[in-house]
C-alpha cells in the first residue's frame, strides 16, 4: 500500500492534489481580499494590519512557505495533467464544437499561467518592493507613517495611481475570476462532494463568489484611479 505514490501517479490522485491545493489558494485569495479591503477604512487601519502581519514573522513565514508549497503542487499537477491530456489526443479534430464546455473550463491553463505571472510581479511590487518595477520613481520601502510603521496606505495609493500597473492588476483579477468561476465548482467535483442536490447550488455559488472576489479586488485600483486617497501622496 502506498497512498502517497498513488496520489501522485493516478489520474484521480492528481485531481485531488489540484483540488486541495486550489482550495487552499482560494481561501488565501478570500483572506487576502478581506485584508486589502481595510484600505477603505483609512491609513490607520490598513497600516496597523500591515504592521501586525510583518511583526509576527513566526506566523508570516510558515504561511508564506505553505502557500508556496500549495502553489507549486497546483502548478505541478496542472502541467502534468495538461501534458497527459494533450497526449491523449494526438490527432486533433478538423472541426470541433465545444458544445457546453465553457470558455473558462477550456482556458484554465492559460488563465493560470497569466495569474502566476501576475503573482510574481505583485510580490515584487508590494512585498519585495522592487523600486524599478513600480514605475513611480520612488521606493516603497522608505514610506513610513507618523508612528514609524510601513505606510501601506500610501504605497497602495502611489502604486495604483500608475494606470499600467492598475490595468495589469484588473486584467489579472478578471482572469482570476474566470479561473475561479470554473475552479471552485470543479474542486468540489474532483473531491467527490457534488451530487444532484448540491451540484447546481455549488455551481451558482462558484460563479457568484468569483464575481465578488473580482469586484472586491478591483475596487481598490479603480477607486485610486478615480482619485481616492490622493491627498495621502501629496
Amino acid at each position, binding site marked *: *500500500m*502506498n*497512498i502517497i505514490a*498513488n*496520489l501522485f501517479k*493516478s*489520474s*484521480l*490522485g*492528481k*485531481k*485531488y492534489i489540484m483540488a486541495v491545493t486550489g482550495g487552499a489558494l482560494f481561501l488565501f485569495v478570500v483572506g487576502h481580499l478581506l485584508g486589502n479591503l481595510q484600505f477603505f477604512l483609512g491609513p490607520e487601519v490598513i497600516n496597523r494590519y500591515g504592521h501586525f502581519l510583518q511583526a509576527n514573522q513566526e506566523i508570516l513565514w510558515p504561511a508564506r512557505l505553505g502557500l508556496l508549497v500549495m502553489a507549486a503542487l497546483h502548478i505541478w499537477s496542472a502541467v502534468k*495533467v495538461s501534458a*497527459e*491530456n494533450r*497526449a*491523449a*489526443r*494526438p*490527432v*486533433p*479534430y*478538423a*472541426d*470541433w*464544437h*465545444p*458544445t*457546453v*464546455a*465553457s470558455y473558462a*473550463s*477550456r482556458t*484554465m491553463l492559460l488563465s493560470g499561467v497569466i495569474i502566476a505571472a501576475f503573482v510574481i510581479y505583485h510580490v515584487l511590487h508590494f512585498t519585495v518592493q522592487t523600486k524599478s518595477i513600480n514605475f513611480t520613481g520612488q521606493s516603497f520601502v522608505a514610506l513610513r507613517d507618523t508612528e514609524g510603521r510601513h505606510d501601506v496606505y500610501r504605497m497602495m495609493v502611489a502604486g495604483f495611481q500608475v494606470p499600467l500597473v492598475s490595468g495589469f492588476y484588473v486584467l489579472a483579477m478578471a482572469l482570476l475570476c474566470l479561473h475561479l468561476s*470554473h475552479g471552485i*465548482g*470543479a474542486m*468540489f*467535483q*474532483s*473531491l*467527490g*462532494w*457534488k*451530487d*444532484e442536490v448540491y*451540484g447546481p447550488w455549488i455551481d451558482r455559488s462558484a460563479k457568484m463568489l468569483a464575481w465578488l472576489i473580482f469586484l472586491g479586488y478591483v475596487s481598490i485600483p479603480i477607486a485610486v484611479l478615480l482619485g481616492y486617497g490622493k491627498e495621502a501622496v501629496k
Partner: protein
Amino acid sequence: MNLTLKVWRQKNATAPGRFEAYEAKDVLPEMSFLEMLDVVNEELMERDEEPIAFDSDCREGICGTCSLVINGIPHGGRKGATVCQLHLRHFKEGDTITIEPWRAKAFPVVRDLVVDRSAFDRIIQAGGFVSVSTGGVPDANAIPVPKADAELAMDAAQCIGCGACVAACKNASAMLFVAAKVSHLGLLPQGKVEKDRRVAKLVEAMDAEGFGNCTVTGSCEAVCPKEISLHFIARLNRDYAVAMLKGRAV
C-alpha cells in the same frame, strides 16, 4: 435533398488519413444519417470505389456501435440520441457536413471512420463485473435494495459504452464511462462487496490505456446518448478516494 460530405478516409491504422468530399444526391429527409451513408456507399461501389467504412449494428440507439463525429459533435448533437437515431431532417438542403472518427490515442483508427474501442473492453475486464458464486437461485426479496439506489444504479447502467464521452472530451478522458460502470455495479448490494477493489482496478486500467484526465467541462454529459450525469464522475472521485484511504487502491 442534396448534401456535401467531407469524410475522413484512412486505409488502415498506420496510413495517413485525409478528407474526401462526396455528394449525397437526392437523399430523403426521413432517412437516418447511416442510411444516407449506405446510399453514398452503394454509389461508390457501383463506381468500383472503396466504400466508406463506418461502424453500426442495431440502428435503434441501444447497442453503442455507431460512432461518428458530425460537424465537431459526437453522434451529431441531438440530445440523448446516437448517430443512427439522427435523421436528415435535422440538416438543411445543400449543407456541407464534416464526418470524422472518434479521436483519441486509446481509440486508434482501424479504417476510415471505424475505431478500435477494445480499450473499453480491457477496462471492463479489469474489474467491471460482479463476481457471483454459483448455486441455487436466491429468494427474490432476500436482499433489500433502496429504491433511490436502484434508480441511480439503473441510470448509470444505461451506458452503452459507445465512447462518445471520450470523443467529446477535449482531453479524451474516459471518466464518464468508468464512472458509469463504478456506480452501476457499486450501488447495488451484490456489487458492493467488490466496490473498493473494482474502482481501484478500473481507474488503473483507464490510466494504463492512455485516456486523458477530467477537467469538468461537461462535454461528455452533453453528448452522451444515454444522458449519463456528470455527477457520476463526482461519485467515482469519491469512491476512489475512499478506496485509496482504506489502502485498497495501489
